[in-house]
């Protein structure tokens, strides 16, 4: 059986996102092969535009129902998802979605407010996750699949103006300036 089909099977039964590394280990296959197969699979799901979507965040993948079926699936599984978010939460999530993985300091420069409490709140709601960057000794935040499911998108790159807001050159300058002040 092809690697692509095996990956599809695993993503289908799994209750959680799977990373390229996990898949490679499980299947005893080179990372490169997994990557290629996933790229193929991604393309197919995008072209089909059916009732199942393949979601992607960085090197992790998860299958989910298409946004168009949102209402009927919600009814079927009796989900209480409302998608309600406060303005500060929404702002923080936006910045993290466009610029993640992002440090707390960077987020605070963009929002102009201390974000400790809001980050904690979003972590508890499972809308973002934290990851230690051991090299830089900082914590980086990124959005989770749960937040992607709020949006009904396959990946953050589908957000409007992603290119522009992902790499904001003015911001790079500003961040450097602030680092200099802090040092």
């Amino acid at each position, binding site marked *: 059986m092809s690697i692509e089909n095996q990956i599809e099977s695993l993503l289908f039964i799994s209750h959680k996102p799977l990373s390229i590394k996990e898949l490679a280990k499980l299947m005893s296959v080179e990372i490169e092969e997994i990557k290629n197969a996933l790229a193929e699979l991604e393309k197919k799901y995008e072209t089909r535009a059916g009732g199942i979507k393949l979601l992607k965040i960085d090197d992790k993948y998860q299958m*989910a129902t298409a946004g168009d079926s949102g*209402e009927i699936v919600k009814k079927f599984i009796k989900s209480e998802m409302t998608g309600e978010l406060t303005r500060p939460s929404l702002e923080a999530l*936006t910045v993290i979605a466009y610029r993640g993985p992002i440090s707390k300091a960077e987020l605070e420069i963009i929002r*102009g407010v201390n974000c400790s409490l809001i980050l904690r709140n979003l972590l508890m709601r499972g809308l973002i996750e934290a990851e230690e960057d051991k090299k830089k000794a900082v914590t980086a935040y990124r959005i989770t699949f749960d937040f992607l499911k709020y949006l009904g998108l396959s990946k953050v790159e589908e957000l409007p103006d992603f290119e522009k807001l992902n790499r904001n050159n003015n911001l790079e300058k500003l961040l450097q300036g602030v680092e200099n002040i802090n040092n």
Partner: protein
Amino acid sequence: MYQIKTEQFSGPLDLLLQLIENQKLDISQVSLAQVTDQYLAYLDEVKDISATELADFLVVATKLLVIKSKILLPQTIDEEEDSAEELEAQLKIYKDYQEASKIIEKIIGQKRFSFSRERIAFQFEPAFSPPPQLNAKVLSDVFGEILKRIEYVVSLPQKVMERTVSLREMVTNIREHLREIGKTNFYQVLKNAKSRTEVVVCFMALLELIKQGEVVVKQKGVFDEIMVESIKS
């Protein structure tokens, strides 16, 4: 004076942006200077601002005053260029992401939610399967580490409070400077200011005095000294 709705702003930049947009201005150092008074007025009026947020609102307040002083007193403050440009740049960037957040809000509002399965799609008998290496000692060690982390979380609001209090002290200093400046030359006071903060404090004080009608400020030409005269004396 323009009335600001007492609504909850998601932060100082949000407030600033709305003040500028209400006046249909573009983001620039001049427009920032123009809304400085309204910004400070809002801080005076609003009561339900949390301690966490107040600190951040005050930080922006000082930056605004630096900008305003830079525009009004171009010859005295030249090393403040960075701070002014920084706030302008920060606000422009914030605006980009705030607009994006409104689009995201709309996307979520369409409720085109996706769902994933919550259990593995495979029938199997659940069986007791403990991690082989786990023992009670590991559990107590791990719990100890969790408690240590909690210590930090619990102290978080306290830290924010401390920061706010120190900023409050600065505002108190302004009141004290009020008296002093009323009887002296503003330029002299500025010259003696040891830090950027002190310059800001002095300037803030001057603005308050003018607003309260206690002093008048006179300047013959653009680059001349600013003379402060107390009306009451």
